[in-house]
């Protein structure tokens, strides 16, 4: 396991929202999914993940449900709320604009 990659807080929120936009997932699955999709580049530490999840829940972007995992253990599953889905679209749009702009600067300048 490599060193933790520091995320800008808003970026982590965006990743979490995107990860659970298709189906509800528990915390472990969210972390794994982000790691897999990013080809092990992005590793989410528990110390960032769980505070972020609770914060997002309090802000009403995501909601939690108590359910059973594949291994039969009770754990919390997170899914997007309607407001969260809109928030995700807005944030993803922002991110595309921002990262596009940064790419331009890095490649052209």
């Amino acid at each position: 396991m490599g060193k933790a990659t520091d995320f800008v807080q808003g970026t982590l929120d965006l990743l979490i929202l995107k990860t659970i936009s298709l189906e509800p997932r528990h915390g472990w699955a969210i972390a794994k999914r982000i790691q897999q999709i990013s080809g092990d580049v992005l590793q989410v530490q528990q110390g960032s993940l769980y505070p972020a999840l609770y914060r997002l829940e309090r802000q009403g972007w995501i909601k939690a449900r108590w359910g059973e995992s594949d291994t039969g253990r009770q754990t919390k599953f997170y899914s997007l709320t309607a407001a969260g889905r809109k928030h995700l679209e807005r944030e993803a749009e922002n991110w595309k604009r921002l990262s596009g702009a940064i790419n331009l600067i890095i490649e052209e300048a």
Partner: protein
Amino acid sequence: MLRAFEKLRVWLWMLFHHRRASERLNAELAFHLEQQIAENLASGMSREEATHAAMRTFGNPTVLREQITEEWSWSWVENLLQDTRYALRQLRQSPGFLIVSILTLTLGIGANTAIFTLMNSLWLQSLPVVNPGQLVVIGITLDGSRARAMGEPLNLSVIESFERHLHSFSGIFGWCEYGADLKEGDSRHSYPGAIVSGNTFDVLGVRPAAGRLLNTADDQPGGGPDGWAVVISHQFWVERFHADPAVIGTHVTLNDYSVTIVGVTPASFGGIIVTAQPDFYMPLNFEPVMRQRQKDSMLRNPFIFYLTTMARLKPGVTRAQASAELATLTPRIVDEAFPPTMRNQQNMRRIRFIALPGRSGWSFLRLRYRQPLFLMQALVGTVLLICCANLAGLGLARATSRLREFSLRIALGAPRLRLMRQVLIENLLLTIPGALLGLVFAWYGCRVLLRFLSAGLQFPVALSTRPDITVLTITAICAVSSALLSGMAPAWLLSRTAPEPTLRHSGNLAIRTENRWMGQAFVCAQVALSLTLVVIAGLLSTTLLKLRLGETGFRTKNIDTVMIDLRLRPERGVALAHLYWRMAERLHKMPGVIDSSLIDIPPLFSFNSEFSVLDPKTSSGTAKQVLPLNEIGSNFFSTLGIPILSGRDFVNRDADAGTCILSQTAAAKLFPHSPALGSVVREYLFSLDAGKVMPKDCEVIGIVGDIKLQNLRIESQPTVYRPIAADMPNPGLMNFVIDAPSFNDAKNAYLQTLHEIAPGSPELDITPISRLLDDSISLERLTASLSGFFAGLALLLSGIGIYGLFARSVTQRTVEFGVRMALGATRSRIVLLVLRQVIRIMLIGIAIGAVTAFISARSIHSFLFGVAPGSVAVFAAAGFLLCVIALLAVFLPVRRAVNLDPADALKTE
């Protein structure tokens, strides 16, 4: 919107399921850890290795948990709990302070709650009916002025006329308090009752607790389908019939006639007269039946106004619109409903009907109690202020002695706001128990107050004393504002504390002069407010003494009065007068009776008949003078010890007809230039039947001393006494006055006479005249004792405040006194030093207090009798009393200062 709701839900869940949320978080984190271990095992590690590696990756779970739970915004609650626990520890260290503060606050807040509870139920509480805001009381105003509008009672003709012409109301009904004598076997007992229009309950929208309520079919001449239907109160139903539904449909004997109980009002409903809760509701048309033997029904008598009239506004109609309609229609209604002799009177052209707010019902006692209740509220409000000043002074002292602690906390980084919150929480911990105990105190206090207010009334004043949400809010406001007021000074002190110099100096020397100045200001304020209370209490007590012990002109010891009600007997006119005489004669000869007589209007009744004297020279002119009139039997003056100055007494014979006796001042007033005895007084009598003046002559046969017969506040008036004789307009009500050394002898003599001479008449209560005296000044007794009690409390608090200030001041000046004594200052010099400070504070306090006391005394002048608002004696006595209290309070601190050993004192540095 939805998201806000979701956020609130999550927040509340976290707040109330703190423990479950923690458990779930733990479970979630444990699950994560297990997954990590499982993954590590899969990659080929041993179990032990896998576990350690997983835990390393996971980091410190406690830190993580705290990081997350901090986001649940629990910290402020936990901080609050921490502060509260600390405050409790602090308070436990000074139990004396704790007990004194809570007790004074209990009295202060409790007294305010008690008085406000009564004001609330007398004026503010809405009737427990459908849409009470739509209800109005129809009253009368002169010249359309709202200020002088009153809920004067009207009568049935007026209400019927309203019903014919008015369009603003969906229903109008009349209501009159009417006593109900319930006969069970041989015993009779009186209960409060009311006669009401048949539509009353429909208009109010009240639902029965059992059976049905009265309706228009019940209120018909001759009765309704159930005969004479009556409704009983819920309280009566529960207390008398144990809430037995079988009582519906039974017959009882009420005021000598059989009635059917058809239903029970709901428990919350106590009628529209907030001070009188009827146990029996009877239809209006039952009244003539109950009065048929006496032949004095008021139901259709156009001269009697007895019905409190309420109406419900139609939806959409405002009270102003209804008043406008009433005003426009007034002339037509007066024409229809008032008899000609009345509507032609001068004032009748000026009256207008008006719709007054009816949301909170009505009471005639509102007018009577308004000033006393406002006075008492002001008194107890002042007491609460003194409590706050006291608490602020003590709080300041505590803050001063904890200055090092606070400085240390500031130096260690505690925000000042947090320290101020600490002080505020400590104060709240005093005021909240104070308020809770105050509610209990108020509950009992209200009962005592009501007993005072009910003195002399047939049925006790039935104001609700249940604290409703308004009362609880006021109590809470009292508690919080007391905490804020008394916490302001210590908080201010904190805001100005610089930690560095305080920590550098040793304890006491760090007290700056401004803190001392502030402590003195609080004591000054207490002295000033206390002086005001003591002066008010002094004035009210003097008033009470002057009223109670003042000269009445008649004997009050061993005199009893009792009413005789002969309205159920057939005798009228001459026969009635003869019956009265026979009773008087029999009573006079009873054992144990020294003297006795008859009187029409009993002493201290606050009411008198009037006697209009016509100028003797003209025969049909206008009335010349109106004097109070009373009708009496022989021996009245000897019974009450009133001197007969000249002439003779009445004799209870037909020879009394055409005679009268004048009081001294009446004689001087009517006959200023000639001897009154033997002269003729011509009475102006307006006969409603004949429609003209029918003068009547009577000869003055005696002159007697002046007495205060009507009311202790009214100086003795010139009075005309007429004999009980054939020509008096008496409906069958008379009173005995009995002079008997033993109350029981008087009572037996009365009962025996009644049963012998006038069998079948009701037995009524016999009352010592000294009780009538007390009852007639019950409000004065209430205000005097209440103000006395609170003035005493204020003095005690001031004493504590002064003691606290000087005990602290002596402690702070220990070193100074030690130095002075070491340098040769004598003990008396030290005493003078302390006393000089005391005198300065007292002088300032008393000077301010004298001004506020004078202003307050001026504003209550209408309560005073026989004493001027600026009475020098009262002011001087109050000032003296405060000085004595101050000297007592500083005695201990001064003694400690004097007994200081200079060597020890210097060592404390």
